[in-house]
């Protein structure tokens, strides 16, 4: 049965007529993990970014550190842009 479903999905894909597969409950956790950012994929996500320039300046001055400013032109660089 599993082979038949796999064959049908692949056959449809190869013929340029892809169908959206059903999402089986037993596949849910695997897919939920596979579709989220993967370990090591986006190291920037592990950084504790601030989102206030004034706050960053005050913290930098207090701690004696430089500021790294990351800007994006169309959306936050911490999300999609």
């Amino acid at each position: 049965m599993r082979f038949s479903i796999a064959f049908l999905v692949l056959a449809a894909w190869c013929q340029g007529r892809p169908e959206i597969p059903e999402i089986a409950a037993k596949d849910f956790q695997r897919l939920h993990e596979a579709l989220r950012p993967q370990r090591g994929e986006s190291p920037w996500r592990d950084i504790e970014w601030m989102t206030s320039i004034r706050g960053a300046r005050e913290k930098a001055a207090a701690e004696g550190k430089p500021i790294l400013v990351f800007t994006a032109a169309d959306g936050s660089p911490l999300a999609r842009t």
Partner: protein
Amino acid sequence: MAHFIPVALDTYFRGAGDEVEFCSKIKAGGNHMAVATAGGKVLGHGDALRMREKELSKALEEFQALPEEERKPRIEVPSNVAPPRRVLPAPPANGLILKGHCTYVRPDAAGQVVRAKEWYYRDNPDRWPVETQSDMLWLTEAEWKSLVPADPKPGDRADVAPPVQKRFFCTIGIDYMEGSVNALLPRETALTLTVESVTPESVSMRLDGTARLGKEFDEKGKSGKNTRGCDVRILGYVAVDRARKAITKFDVVGLGLAWGNKMEYLHREIRLDAEPWMYGIAVELVETRRPIDLVPPYNMLHYGSGLKYFAE
């Protein structure tokens, strides 16, 4: 990164007058990275999008060579500073924050859906792998409370309120792998919650849904303007803590087919062989409130699709 104070900004929302002025001084705007002192002295190359270890090391060396009054300047904010021209919205009071993720997928040889490896500018020697994209979904207190049944019994089914269905599918149910893409308005949506189990402490529900968004797929016109569209199917699980009256889990998986150009003025930076192509989404509840968790949903701020975020 421990040697730096990292700050990330949407160029259109850089803050009050003193903050915009500081950004202008160090040329922090557009798609850009810069290193500077708290007083506004640019360090390192100063004009590069890339800040790899070697660029950061050079900037740090320059910083450490500065006198203390430049490394630890006194920050004074004028009392008459201009307020922000655009105020970054905050999440709704007592609202729900969900985080969505999007990536490309494909069926493997066994028919199992797995991540697909695609590239930005794949024909370029400097190509790099596409990265999972993330976006937020905000629900008001009234909206998320409408998802919680008052007297739940296993097997109870209820349709999710149309504005929530629309916002969910239009913004984080689509393929947004190229980042700055507008919401796709729905042609058809269905989203249903089914109570699976009830205990004195909790309610567990399953979320099933489908949506057809944007334009219909047209084999002849697929490379033309204004051709974006997608079909998506989702499955999710929602848990409610009855004592806390709080949603404690909101996990969703979605698989979809997408087509068309992402924008009117750009062709795809990610070339894909198949059209329609397959994408997947995952959604999870955000329980922390760090700055990165409070980034507004993309289509709340940058919309050209006609979607009014909370108004519908």
